């Protein structure tokens, strides 16, 4: 049998393979050769074979049949065999295989071997993949080696101890005495690993932490020596002596000094020294400075030191090297909560980083910018952030949009600015905003009463441009449905009012219904908006037609809505105005759907209208509730779309009541209220009372007003007026008086008294001026 090829030949051969299949073939051939060689128990070449096996394992091919061979190699006496054996064990085995337990004895023997290299190997392997049982068995040996004077072994033993502690935390106390003089070593390797060991112990147990605090002076001394000593050829990296050790010590100091005043004070000087003396021209120096800054931020340092740290970070931000800028942004993000003012000074640099090409830097800069926004800089920052939103990658847009909304909500200087900002976000990144932003926005718009006309105009213009962004379209159609009358009447103080006819508006909304770009949710919104406009516009027929068409739509949601609206037109036409009135101002609640809290200006008692059962304050509400149940309208429909509510009006004392009619024992009083939120609507409640000795049955009250007004008559409380003033029939009239002309009304009364029908017409002219001004 020819001698198996060496590892490098194998590598060379495999490199020449041009395809994956070729490579696989070569490896299989080699694997077969290796397997037969193993079967022959060939000692001389075992090490070579296992080395090749390791290479193949690295390429991803199965190599488990080599595990036992590794063990045999470990047990051999030759160092080369042992080396490959242990390497194989580290690469191929882990604690899940049963085979590794067989190694325990070998490792134990090797830990006491005469050659330090063998001992080192054993320590290395144990530290890499020792299971808890192995660690428990061998911890004593490790501890012994930790105390030896051989620095080569000491440093490896320290790291092995770290692994042991991780696997078996109870053994930590065992290593405590050995750590006493670890730090007095001169050898940097030992120092380094000892610091790692101490760090691990401190992180695991607060008692250890307290115990090791007394080492702070020693650590400070070591650090000082490192900085002060001149050029040391052994550990020099670009002119700084052993930066790795410096960084490690700084990290340990951070853990020790956290929330402890004495230790922090002892460290202050050295930290200041490191911060000022380290050379920053190379990456190495910056690495040390970075660690120093992190330490200063974490311990209880004095404020001068903190300012120094933030200034260092500021300098990092101006550095050309991307890595350093990234690192600076990350640290600033951590400190912005505690040292807000200091970080604000670097705000302009941070905002510049938004324009950087690197993705990691952009993300960090964006998060930091949002953290820095406050009432003073909101306008400037928002401009930059909106510009960023325009040009950034899609993965950022959702986060950026939510951040913008949050910041705008907290710090908006004016309602108009707030609405403008939101509109800008919707138009640029509309498809990326989160789902819950649409109801939030709607709630915001309802709350800014004076901006309704402006908002609806801008949204309408945006809709004309682009109907692909669903959140924008949804908000816009909702607004048009609510405030369409403002749009058509061209009342806008903030901007140039545009001339829009009712037909144009309906065209746009119908366009949304048929467009391919609209999702079903958007279609629902626009259908409801069209329906709402039936009370605000005059082209009702067109609306009726649209609604009836969708009564046979395939989409079940649309169909249901259309059928219900149709029913509204047909059977419940007198309910329609009440149902489709304006929404009141909604209070923001933490739950999802807006539970409506009725807003009162004069009176203080809010009545929370639960979606299913409006409080039966007056009869119209009762009727409407019955209507709801009869139609089986869905909750969300009603609550969000219709504005079913009772408005508590302003106190009645401002407008005096009047007697409108008093004849033949029937007296009708008018009492007035101003409706909120629209001051152009006067709400008149008629109270009909009967002073005759017989009931008036089938009582119907009708009213007519001149053309400039609009009248809505709600249902009466009953149609029997009890005799002898025993009760009154009330009915609510709502008069819309946009031009504020003098209110005049013609009323017609029909009732049956003692079996004979009575009909009467009358004019009411004596309305008090306050009712229509």
């Amino acid at each position: 049998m020819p001698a198996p090829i060496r590892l490098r030949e194998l590598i060379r051969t495999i490199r020449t393979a041009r395809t994956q299949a070729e490579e696989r073939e070569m490896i299989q051939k080699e694997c077969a050769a290796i397997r037969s060689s193993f079967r022959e128990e060939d000692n001389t070449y075992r090490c070579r074979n296992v080395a090749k096996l390791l290479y193949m394992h690295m390429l991803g091919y199965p190599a488990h049949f080599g595990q036992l061979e590794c063990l045999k190699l470990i047990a051999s006496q030759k160092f080369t065999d042992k080396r490959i054996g242990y390497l194989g064990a580290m690469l191929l085995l882990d604690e899940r295989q049963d085979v590794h337990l067989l190694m325990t004895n070998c490792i134990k023997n090797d830990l006491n071997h005469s050659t330090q290299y063998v001992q080192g190997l054993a320590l290395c392997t144990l530290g890499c993949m020792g299971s808890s049982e192995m660690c428990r068995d061998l911890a004593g040996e490790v501890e012994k080696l930790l105390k030896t004077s051989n620095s080569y072994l000491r440093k490896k033993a320290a790291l092995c101890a770290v692994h042991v502690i991780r696997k078996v935390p109870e053994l930590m106390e065992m290593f405590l005495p050995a750590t006493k003089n670890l730090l007095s070593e001169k050898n940097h390797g030992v120092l380094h690993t000892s610091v790692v060991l101490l760090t691990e112990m401190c992180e695991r147990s607060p008692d250890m932490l307290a115990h090791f605090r007394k080492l702070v002076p020693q650590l400070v001394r070591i650090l000082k020596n490192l900085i002060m000593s001149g050029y040391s050829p052994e550990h020099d990296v670009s002119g700084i002596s052993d930066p790795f050790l410096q960084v490690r010590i700084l990290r340990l100091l951070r853990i020790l000094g956290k929330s402890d005043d004495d230790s922090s004070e002892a460290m202050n000087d050295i930290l200041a020294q490191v911060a000022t003396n380290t050379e920053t021209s190379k990456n190495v120096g910056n690495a040390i400075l970075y660690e120093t800054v992190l330490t200063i931020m974490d311990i209880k340092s004095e404020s001068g030191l903190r300012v120094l740290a933030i200034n260092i970070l500021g300098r990092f931000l101006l550095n050309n090297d991307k890595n350093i800028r990234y690192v600076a942004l990350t640290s600033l993000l951590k400190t912005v909560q505690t040292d807000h003012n200091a970080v604000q000074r670097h705000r302009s640099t941070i905002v510049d980083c938004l324009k950087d090409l690197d993705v990691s830097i952009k993300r960090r800069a964006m998060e930091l910018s949002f953290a820095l926004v406050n009432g003073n800089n909101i306008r400037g920052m928002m401009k930059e952030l909106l510009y960023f939103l325009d040009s950034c990658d899609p993965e950022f847009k959702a986060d950026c949009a939510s951040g913008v909304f949050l910041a705008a909500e907290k710090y908006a200087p004016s309602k108009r600015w707030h609405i403008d900002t939101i509109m800008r976000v919707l138009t640029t990144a509309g498809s990326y905003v989160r789902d819950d932003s649409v109801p939030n926005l709607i709630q915001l718009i309802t709350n800014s009463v004076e901006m309704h006309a402006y908002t609806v105009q801008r949204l309408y213009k945006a809709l004309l441009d682009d109907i692909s962004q669903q959140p924008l379209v949804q908000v816009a159609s909702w607004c048009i449905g609510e405030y369409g009358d403002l749009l058509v009447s061209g009342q806008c103080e903030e901007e140039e009012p545009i001339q829009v006819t009712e037909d144009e508006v309906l065209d746009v909304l119908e366009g949304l219904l048929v467009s391919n770009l609209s999702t079903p949710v958007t279609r629902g919104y626009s259908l409801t908006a069209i329906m709402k406009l039936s009370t605000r516009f005059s082209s009702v027929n067109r609306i009726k037609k649209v609604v009836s068409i969708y009564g046979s739509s395939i989409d079940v949601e649309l169909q249901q809505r259309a059928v219900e609206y149709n029913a509204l037109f047909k059977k419940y036409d007198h309910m329609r105005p009440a149902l489709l009135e304006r929404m009141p101002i909604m209070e923001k609640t933490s739950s999802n759907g807006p539970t409506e809290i009725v807003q009162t200006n004069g009176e203080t008692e809010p009545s929370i209208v639960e979606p299913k059962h409006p409080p039966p304050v007056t009869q119209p509400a009762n009727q409407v509730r019955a209507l709801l149940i009869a139609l089986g309208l869905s909750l969300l429909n009603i609550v969000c779309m219709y504005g079913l509510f009772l408005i508590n009006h302003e106190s009645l004392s401002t407008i005096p009541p009047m007697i409108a009619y008093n004849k033949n024992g029937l007296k009708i009083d008018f009492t007035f209220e101003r409706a909120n939120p629209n001051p152009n609507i006067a709400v008149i409640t008629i109270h009909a009372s009967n002073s005759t000795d017989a009931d008036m049955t089938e009582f119907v009250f009708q009213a007519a007003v001149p053309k400039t007004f609009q009248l809505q008559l709600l249902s009466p409380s009953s149609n029997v007026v009890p005799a002898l003033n025993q009760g009154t029939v009330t009915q609510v009239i709502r008069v819309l008086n946009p031009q504020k002309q003098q209110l005049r009304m013609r009323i017609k009364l029909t009732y049956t008294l003692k079996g004979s029908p009575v009909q009467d017409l009358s004019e009411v002219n004596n309305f008090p001026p306050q009712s229509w001004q």
Partner: protein
Amino acid sequence: MIKFILMVNRQGQTRLSRYYTPVELNRRATLEADVVRCCLSRKKDQCSFVEYKDYKLVYRQYAALYIVVGVTDSENELSVYELVHNFVEVLDKYFSRVIMFNLDRVHVILDEMIQNGHIVETNKSRILAPLTALDKMADG
């Protein structure tokens, strides 16, 4: 601590891999491919630290070879960057010829430098001392 070290070439083939946390074999291939794709797609002027799942990658390019180190969040990235450079210098000192044909030696060097995810030794001569001894034993 360091989770893994990879050396890959520009075609994405792994030349060296060392894991300091247990990762199953089948997941290793996907992990390596993913990491490599991440690093190879970055341009020259982008920073060398990438956030990948729940840890950070620090990578450095030397001619046709990329060295990628995966570290936990708590590590100082700049320090790891220096470590990579140190490692390359050690390799340079030892191997007069092409590195990749002596994979086992590279592993030995790596073991002397990094154990268990932490740095053991950074002094070049001390790292290479056991290796020279090994070589002497192998020849003799």
